[in-house]
């Protein structure tokens, strides 16, 4: 018996909420990046669970694309943080504030 889609939905909603909370409350850029990954993986769980329920492969295909795109995003994100770290010596977003208004 497969896992019922409702269970998957509740799980993914929780995971998504954890991700959003992490983005909103954390100060470390790397941890914010990890929280964003949680949000995207919550969506992946939905895609696969819903696809399984309706016997549709699109969901799985979408998940594969999401994983690949997320990897690209991590690479760019790390590069951005690295450039900042070289100039400013910090990864804490609340210490980054030359521009205001």
């Amino acid at each position: 018996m497969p896992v019922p889609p409702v269970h998957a939905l509740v799980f993914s909603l929780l995971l998504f909420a954890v991700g959003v909370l992490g983005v909103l409350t954390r100060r470390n850029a790397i941890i914010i990046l990890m929280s964003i990954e949680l949000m995207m993986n919550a969506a992946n769980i939905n895609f696969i669970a819903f696809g399984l329920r309706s016997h549709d492969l699109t969901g799985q295909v979408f998940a594969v694309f999401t994983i690949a795109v997320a990897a690209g995003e991590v690479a760019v994100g790390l590069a951005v943080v690295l450039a900042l770290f070289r100039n400013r010596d910090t990864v804490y977003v609340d210490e980054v504030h030359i521009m205001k208004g």
Partner: protein
Amino acid sequence: MTSLFNPNDVRLITPELVLTISAFLILGLSVLPDLGRKTWAPVLAGLACVSTLASLLSFVWMFGLEALRTPDMTIGFNGMFILDAFSIFFKVVFLLAAMLTILVSARYLEVERAHTGEYYALILFAVVGMMFLASAGDFITIFVSLETMALSFYILVGFLKTNRKSNEAALKYFLLGSFSTGIFLYGISLVYGTTQTTVLGLIGISRAKMALQSPAAPIFVLGVILVTVGLAFKIAAVPFHMWAPDAYEGAPTPVTAFLSTGSKAAAFVVLARIFSMGFLPLGQRWATLLAILAVASMTLGNVAAILQENIKRMLAYSSIAHAGYVLMGMIAVGLGDTVETREYGLKAVLLYLLVYTFVNIGAFALVIILRREQVAGDRVADFAGLSRRAPWAAFAMLVFMLSLAGIPATAGFIGKWFLFGAVVKAHYAWLAVVAVINSAISLYYYARVVVNMYMKAPEGAARLAPSWGQRVAIGACIAFTLVFGLYPQPIIAFAERSILALAPWAS
């Protein structure tokens, strides 16, 4: 079973292929042994410019001038790629925006000592993303091309590696941008779960209505809301605008110009495509949602712009306000009770985005030519006395400011006229009143720049030395703004022909 691949489909993506291949070529050439940076980078800039032109011409070559005038809707790659008048209109806008951006970039990057081939390759990759976005008929293509564009922009915003402002802008834009991507993606997953398809056309035809009546309706509505929020981030509508002022201020100015026009237009393409193909049965609901966003964006954008001393920041807030104006067209699409009203709304959106591209890139081009060694040139005060130092530049800025404010005889007025008309037609006249009041407010800060240029004494006597590329770009923008401000029929007809074909059940 449908066949996996139809060789004819490749024809449809020729313009994109041209750009992709030249982007790779530029990337490859930029690591070749130095022939001296001084001679190499301008060649790559030229190559990038030529490739956008080639891509533009390949439309004509592929489909002929006649087909360009009345193109049929062609669907390729099993429904993932749609080539219709609507997508061609936006592809033309994106290519023109990219071309203008490339023209104004070279001199600026030399001053910043960041003139490398990668910059042009990234611009081209961003354009490829936008062009696929305009043609996307499926959530998978939408997501992948949106990310192609966004990832290129994250890097472009942080392109000045040793500049702290650029680093900071890139970090903020990246974190909030990918946050919005996460929200957007989760929204898509819920929509997929309730409608069991990612093809926009299929959602619209019957499944959106079905999903609304099933017990899963709240999940579907939540999905639509999350998709809206994700896109609101991309168009920088209030309250999802926090990244825009910082990203616009810190990014290299040509990138800011491209970001505020190309990327915004691209987000509106998706908005128009998703909402009028997929979610039209919910028109009433999302139109209300967009109306709130529009009022908030217009008001906050214009009021905050008054307080800015940095002109890039001021234009950022103005760009937030303009996103609010354009949303009014989409509201008419959602609320209209006749097909005619809906099409009028779409036409207004298309027209405004085309005009805004030229006007805004023109305005940023003026900020770019003020940048010299030792002078950032991005404060409003830097425009003081420009009319005496460089009368032509001052005149150009005057035209762009008036056009952004929507003064008659400029193209900006035509765009606003149609947007305001659209909401009146949709019986949302109060929104038009709000927009008119906001236009009046915006006049104040646009006029401040003009007053600085014409009424104040210049701070220094340094002459401006724009490159010929910058001259051509500014000239083209002025010509567009004035010619189509006085004689708008051609662009109105172009927008009219290009609106998305709405299905008969739209009424």
